[in-house]
């Protein structure tokens, strides 16, 4: 793909008329009906909505874990709907990082090895892998916990390991699905501060949550209802509007 001005100006995420229909036996479920939206590089977007509103489906599509039934999804200019499973795996490996509500760390595996996981599939050499994983753990403040197993870490620490795992591949986009859902409020606040800090590295962050307090950390809030975008605002709940404008200028 040629690196030129339009490529830089182009939004990172571009959905046009995306629909996703599931077949549960004879019942058709329209998880997403007709969604068009774009997210610029470096944006921090929160996606809200009741359960069943389609926000998780959207997350799966943006995360290249699923393909839309109809419409077009371009990630960094690449049409996802037409990619093979292999190609999607490569995209997830190189361009994306995931943070889940339930951490999803491998049990009985050290923090370091958990963080190394994406690099293993990225065919990074063992020594580089270890170095980069250690750096990622230091970045989330767990430089002294590299050899701990998940069950020896608190929830907040486990989620930070998960963030280190999401960051180790130097992704353009980090997707967080209810990252604070299993954390107490102190750990949640810590987590959100950490996530918001990723903007400084130019990482685009998409966060799914149903808690307004958590969504308040984002610069923009998209609300889903019944598989449609219900509202999309530069939700300036408590944040300074200036930050939004700054990011917009960069995009």
């Amino acid at each position, binding site marked *: 793909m040629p690196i030129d001005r339009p490529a830089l100006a182009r939004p990172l995420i571009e959905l046009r008329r995306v629909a996703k229909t599931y077949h549960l036996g004879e019942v058709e479920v329209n998880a997403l009906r007709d969604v068009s939206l774009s997210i610029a590089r470096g944006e921090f977007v929160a996606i809200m909505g009741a359960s069943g509103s389609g926000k998780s489906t959207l997350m*799966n599509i943006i*995360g290249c*874990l*699923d393909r839309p039934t109809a419409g077009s999804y371009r990630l960094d200019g690449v049409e996802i709907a037409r990619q093979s*499973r*292999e190609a999607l*795996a*490569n995209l*997830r*490996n*190189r361009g994306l990082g*995931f943070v*889940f509500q339930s951490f*999803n*760390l*491998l049990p*009985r595996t050290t923090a370091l090895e958990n963080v190394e*996981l*994406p690099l*293993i*599939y*990225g*065919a990074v050499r063992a020594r580089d892998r270890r170095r980069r994983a250690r750096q990622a753990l230091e970045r989330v403040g767990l430089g002294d916990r590299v050899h701990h197993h998940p069950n020896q870490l608190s929830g907040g620490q486990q989620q930070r390991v998960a963030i280190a*795992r999401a960051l180790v*591949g130097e992704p353009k986009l980090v997707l967080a699905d209810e990252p604070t859902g299993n954390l107490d409020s102190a750990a949640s606040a810590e987590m959100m501060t950490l996530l918001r800090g990723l903007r400084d590295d130019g990482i685009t962050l998409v966060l799914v949550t149903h808690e307004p307090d958590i969504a308040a950390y984002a610069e923009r809030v998209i609300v889903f209802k019944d598989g449609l975008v219900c509202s999309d605002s530069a939700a300036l709940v408590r944040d300074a509007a200036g930050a939004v404008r700054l990011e917009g200028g960069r995009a």
Partner: protein
Amino acid sequence: MRLLETVRIALRALRRNRLRSFLTALGIIIGVAAVIAMVAIGEGAKARVEQAFTAMGTNVLIVSSGAKTAGGVKVAAGTLPTLTWDDLKAIGAEVPGVRCVAPRLHATGQVVTEDQNWATLVTGTTPEFFEIRNWPIRLGAGITAEDVDAGAKTAVLGDTVAAHLFGASADPVGQMVRIQNVPFRVVGVADRKGQSPGGNDYDDVVYVPVSTFLAKIQGGLQSYIAGTIMVEVTADDQTAVVGARIAALLRDRHNIGAGADDDFTVKNLTETANRKEESTQALTLLLASIAAVSLVVGGIGIMNIMLVSVTERTREIGVRVAVGAKPRHILFQFLIESLALSVMGGLAGVALGLVAAERLALRFGWPMLVRPDVIALAVGFSALVGIGFGLYPAYKAARLDPIVALRYE
């Protein structure tokens, strides 16, 4: 991702569940051990049969009297003496393909020294006998043609007899023994021969010249040979042909008309040996196939545990796929896990099988015979079992939808 990395991941997963991995591999361990032990048993038995027949002498035909029909009932060979000393000479002189012949006459008798005695088989024969039986003399000399001509009272002791009468390490040559109260001078001790196919001790015997045997031990009617004629054939593959020639000669000499039964029996040892070998071969095959079935059962155990493992690690699979594992990475990971289980089980089974085979060989006094091709086959087959039975669970894992897998409880 490199293959080595996949192997490492698989081995770590197995190490995490040591006991379970061991129990799963146990099926393969037992299966492979059983195959190796069974084949070793079969080979050992076969080797013992071969050894025994080789000890009897190769290319040997045994002609015995009898097999005469008495009122429709066939009397066992040797019960009625029909072979004459002229028959013996005729076989030696007239039948092409015969290298030499020797009579063998038996009687059980007590052999007595000054302070010991031993009941054994006293055999009267000629020097050719030791050639036919391929039986060297360990100490002293054998029976000579002069001894036979002169009816000398000389004796060659079998190893067992020598050991019982004089002690295992003694040299009894020159000593006197009494057989049926007749004094004999010991001229030699025959080399150790071992056991017959029937389990009899070949070395529990005393040889005397046939002329002396007839005069001093057997007594009675002597125009017929009250024993057997041993015939050595010039070439291995000629035994059947020469046997037929001998039969034709004897029928002619005994004036047996067409359609009438033989009054003698020609036993072909090579044929007997081959038949015996075939039957042990069949037994080996049977034992090995039963053992192979247990290998397949072991494979089913592996499949079972791999399916459990895939279900248990659904979330792990989801995470791996989310961070960029391709379906083939997952497939290989689980396939290599089951392959590692079965191959490690196979190698452990080889070790166990070798120990078992050695124990059994010791127990039964067989030679320990482990065929390298059987080991390779057993390990190869267990690897095949690992791949075969691991394929479905691995395929199932690779096909998991990451979205479902990540939410799996």
